[in-house]
């Protein structure tokens, strides 16, 4: 198994300059790639790597409060990574298996986006992860809102949680990521529904390189949110379609499929429908069996 040595802010910056920027210059935002990456440059402004933690989300909250207690503020973009987690969890009460070999962490963002742009933050991690995974020859797709799948097996999941600093009242958005990279052993109940990059690629992956790929892609996608917000506010462009959602649509296979929807779809599936489109504000339009349509802005789907 390829080892995870160390990701640092300097290493990430070099990776952005030498790998991410040239890639983006040949993509959909060729001319503005450098500017977008500057907007997202705060991602990974500090990177703290740990051999093992309970949960990186918990660590992130503690780091914010500890710095505030000392009269300081945490740097936006501070990223906490652990080689393994002992108490990881998904949404609701779901367990998340996080042994060595995967990429587990949290990015701390100071909340400076307007609400209508901030609402798309959960999509940034899904798009960034899907792009990073595809760079290893793995045909990943996104399931609304931001699960990353390969052949309908989950390869990555994300938690997006708001947090308010206890002393300052500053609001943060914590982007938690769990990506199965080289870990190939899953608990019995996940064996049929989980996969890792190495399993699909047929080779182990340099985990440090992968972490840089993911964080650099995230810097681009978060940068795109800020870049687009600025352009809209300057009236240099229309608000819709949002370029992040255009990228999301290219990477997702969620549209036109029969699905079951639920706020917590595992514990309480609510209804079956067919997905119609993702709206310009990120909602999922679903057509029920009677032809009526609903737009959901939260919750989850599972493919039927």
């Amino acid at each position, binding site marked *: 198994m390829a080892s995870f040595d160390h990701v640092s802010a300097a290493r990430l910056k070099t990776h952005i300059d030498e790998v991410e920027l040239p890639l983006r210059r040949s993509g959909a935002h060729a001319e503005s790639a450098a500017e977008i990456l500057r907007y997202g440059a705060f991602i990974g402004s500090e990177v703290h790597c740990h051999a093992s933690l309970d949960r990186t989300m918990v660590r992130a909250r503690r780091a914010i409060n500890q710095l505030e207690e000392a009269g300081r503020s945490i740097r936006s973009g501070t990223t906490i990574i652990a080689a393994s987690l002992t108490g990881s969890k998904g*949404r609701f*009460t779901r367990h998340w298996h996080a042994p060595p070999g995967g990429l587990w962490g949290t990015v701390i963002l100071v909340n400076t986006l307007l*609400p209508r742009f*901030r*609402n*798309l*933050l*959960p*999509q940034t991690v899904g798009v960034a992860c899907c792009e990073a995974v595809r760079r290893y020859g793995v045909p990943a797709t996104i399931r609304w*809102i*931001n699960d990353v799948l390969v052949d309908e097996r989950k390869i990555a999941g*994300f*938690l*997006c*949680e*708001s*947090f308010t600093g206890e002393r300052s009242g500053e609001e943060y*958005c914590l982007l938690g990521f769990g990506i199965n990279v080289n870990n190939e052993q899953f608990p019995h109940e996940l064996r049929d529904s989980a996969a890792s990059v190495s399993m699909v690629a047929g080779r182990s992956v340099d985990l440090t390189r992968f972490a840089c790929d993911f964080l650099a892609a995230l810097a681009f996608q978060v940068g795109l949110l800020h870049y687009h917000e600025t352009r809209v506010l300057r009236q240099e462009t229309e608000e819709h379609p949002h370029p992040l959602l255009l990228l999301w649509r290219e990477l997702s296979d969620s549209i036109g499929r029969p699905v079951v929807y*639920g*706020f*917590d779809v595992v514990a*309480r599936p*609510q*209804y079956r429908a067919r997905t119609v489109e993702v709206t310009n504000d*990120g909602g999922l339009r679903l057509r*029920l069996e009677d032809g*009526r*349509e*609903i737009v959901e*802005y*939260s*919750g*989850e789907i599972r493919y039927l």
Partner: protein
Amino acid sequence: MTHEIDFDDIIAKYRSDPYKYIEVCAPHTGVVAFRVGKGAAVDAASGEWLHIPGTRLFEITRENNGKPIFSPIAGIVSELRADLEGRFVEAGEPLMTIRHPLKKKDIIENILKDVLYLFRAPEKAKYFFALDIQTRIDKKGARSVTIKPGDEILTMSLMKRDTPVYYAGEEGVIHSVYFEPGLSVAQGEPLIGICSAEKLPLIQKVITRVKAEWDNI
């Protein structure tokens, strides 16, 4: 929170006018075209997920984009600004009033909302109880769960971004729950109604009294 209730006054008020009046306003500027007349019966959204729109009340057209506006509640159109038909109106202009007949349950809820401390939705989103609160509710029921200012009581979920919601009201028990975990709650709508333990008998008195009085109307 109200400490004393003049039941006779309240009951008389509802007895003389057992309706709720909802003013429907222009959501944005545009040209108005009414689709119902004064006195028309209108329906609210229906279906298990409230996905079937209510009666189409009017359309408002801005820059050639016509937006249909549906009735938020069932009732009768009691007032209509027919003089505005085909005219340009500003956002917030009242266009019609819907008279909604109240049931006994609505009246009890209305009175309770005067008596309870209402904790309202900070944003339009879906809400669910924080894990700790949910566990306590599952074990003993909501009315056995006491909360105090600063407690993390709910999680607000919007686009899969979960935001903890902290309670900022009087200490008390969760008497009424106004949201369902799977359905969106509009900003400002009540999520839960809180009652201090010593006021619980008063609440019970409200319910009993209204039930008895209303049956006699």
